[in-house]
């Protein structure tokens, strides 16, 4: 690994820093409370698809494991349960096993915000206003495409699979039928889960088509398998989750939050089991998080935005690295 200095990126870095300032201005103006939070925690929310960083606190004979937070969610939800109201964090998050690539870095800046008594579509409204504020109400240009934040292009996950991948809604939600369709399309399905193959087809056939029509795309209602901490829709087939895209780049992930602590507890145990199966670092489950939900979390919705990615779009550069002045490369050479 190597430390790289990029004085040539100062102009793009300035755009990143300006976006941070403007985001704070906008959210403060809209009565959100900004909080600064720890990035080291003794327990985490179990997420089966993320690897974490583990370190140790040492004092004399005392030794305690600590983990870098892959998102500030566990802290923010505690605060929400204490009725702090609309709240946000703009700072670093950490994901291990994410080598440096055009869209990833193991250390990155995340904007995570929550609004009380709102659902995911309400968040979409305030998000669009934020994007408009960041662009001064003007269109931006990214890779030759002109993007306006005057409206969303809205499409449900089921519609997107039908339109772009020719997968019917009946096939999309049925594991066996979906894997058959994928096999026919030439995907490797043997010994892979519905989630893995779904995610591959999504990346291959859906994502490149999103946010390509002059507006950001809001892709909503994911299969319940990808509910994570989101509330399910009626009939329990889909979760109240959306992601938004500009020119094929995923920028944020929003849920109407699950407030049922019993359901949350079940999902945590499943995620923890999957983590073990895929040989990930074991960490204590954050029981305080469940207790906070038990204490009573009012209906709310929240979104996490990859801020470096957003800045790279505004700076019209193809990798997040180009918005940074110091980077750590994960190459082994």
């Amino acid at each position, binding site marked *: 690994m190597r430390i790289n200095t990029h004085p040539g990126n100062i102009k793009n870095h300035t755009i990143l820093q300006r976006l941070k300032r403007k985001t704070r201005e906008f959210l403060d103006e809209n009565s959100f409370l900004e909080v600064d939070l720890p990035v080291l925690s003794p327990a985490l929310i179990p997420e089966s*698809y993320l690897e974490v960083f583990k370190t140790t606190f040492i004092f004399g004979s005392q030794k305690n494991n600590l983990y870098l937070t892959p998102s500030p969610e566990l802290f923010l939800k505690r605060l929400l349960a204490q009725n702090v109201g609309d709240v946000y964090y703009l700072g670093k998050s950490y994901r291990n096993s994410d080598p440096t690539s055009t869209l990833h870095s193991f250390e990155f800046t995340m904007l995570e915000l929550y609004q009380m008594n709102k659902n995911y579509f309400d968040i979409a409204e305030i998000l669009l206003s934020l994007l408009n504020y960041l662009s001064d109400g003007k269109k931006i240009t990214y890779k030759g495409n002109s993007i306006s934040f005057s409206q969303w292009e809205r499409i449900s996950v089921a519609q997107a699979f039908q339109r772009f991948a020719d997968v019917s809604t009946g096939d999309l939600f049925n594991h066996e039928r979906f894997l058959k369709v994928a096999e026919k399309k030439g995907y490797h399905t043997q010994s892979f889960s519905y989630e893995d193959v779904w*995610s591959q087809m999504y990346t291959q056939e859906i994502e490149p088509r999103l946010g390509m029509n002059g507006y950001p795309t809001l892709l909503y209602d994911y299969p319940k398998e990808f509910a994570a901490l989101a509330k399910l829709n009626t009939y329990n087939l889909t979760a109240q989750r959306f992601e938004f895209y500009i020119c094929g780049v995923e920028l944020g992930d929003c849920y109407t939050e699950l407030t049922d602590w019993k359901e949350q507890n079940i999902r945590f145990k499943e995620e923890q089991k999957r983590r073990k199966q895929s040989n990930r670092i074991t960490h204590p489950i954050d029981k305080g998080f469940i207790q906070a939900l038990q204490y009573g979390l009012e209906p709310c919705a929240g979104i996490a935005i990859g801020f470096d990615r957003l800045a790279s779009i505004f700076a019209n550069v193809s990798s997040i690295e180009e918005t940074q002045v110091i980077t750590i490369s994960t190459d082994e050479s």
Partner: protein
Amino acid sequence: MKTNAGNLKKGEFIMYQGAIWQVQKADFYSPGKGSALMKSRIKNLLTSKNIEYAFKSNEPVDVLEVTCVEMEYLYKDAENVFFMDQRSYNQYTLALSVVGDVAKFMKEGNTYYVYVHDEKPLTMRPPTSVKLKVMETEDAVKGDTVSGAKKAAKVETGVTVMVPLFVKVGDVVTVNPETGEYGERVKE
């Protein structure tokens, strides 16, 4: 040799859907829904077509073992480029479409590296730079001092390269054969 797609690297050769492909790009991507992926661009060495494909990072992929053999470039015609292995004197043929624009910068009689798998040539390993003599170019106009200004120069392989104004007929310059960009003027 089977490996997980997560280990794929640019330049490697893989067997995929019954054809041989060269990896042009392999970028880690974690969608946060399902396992991580390797977003790749691969080039079919038969049709020369590039496709984008997202492999699951834990999906088994057949990586071919190849050797890199030094060969003399003999000549090319409208469709093929011909090489000779200088040790065995065996001749090898590559489609011009597979070699690509690099062929425009290759000098007959020079040696280049060719990737070989199972006695079959796959593609060339393009040199990072080639030395070429300037055959035709206009003299620099006196007083033209715009820094970074370029002019066209025809080099000995017949292709035109943009060079700085100080380059004269008879000079030898280096060119990156993959991009066609001028590098520097060298003494022969």
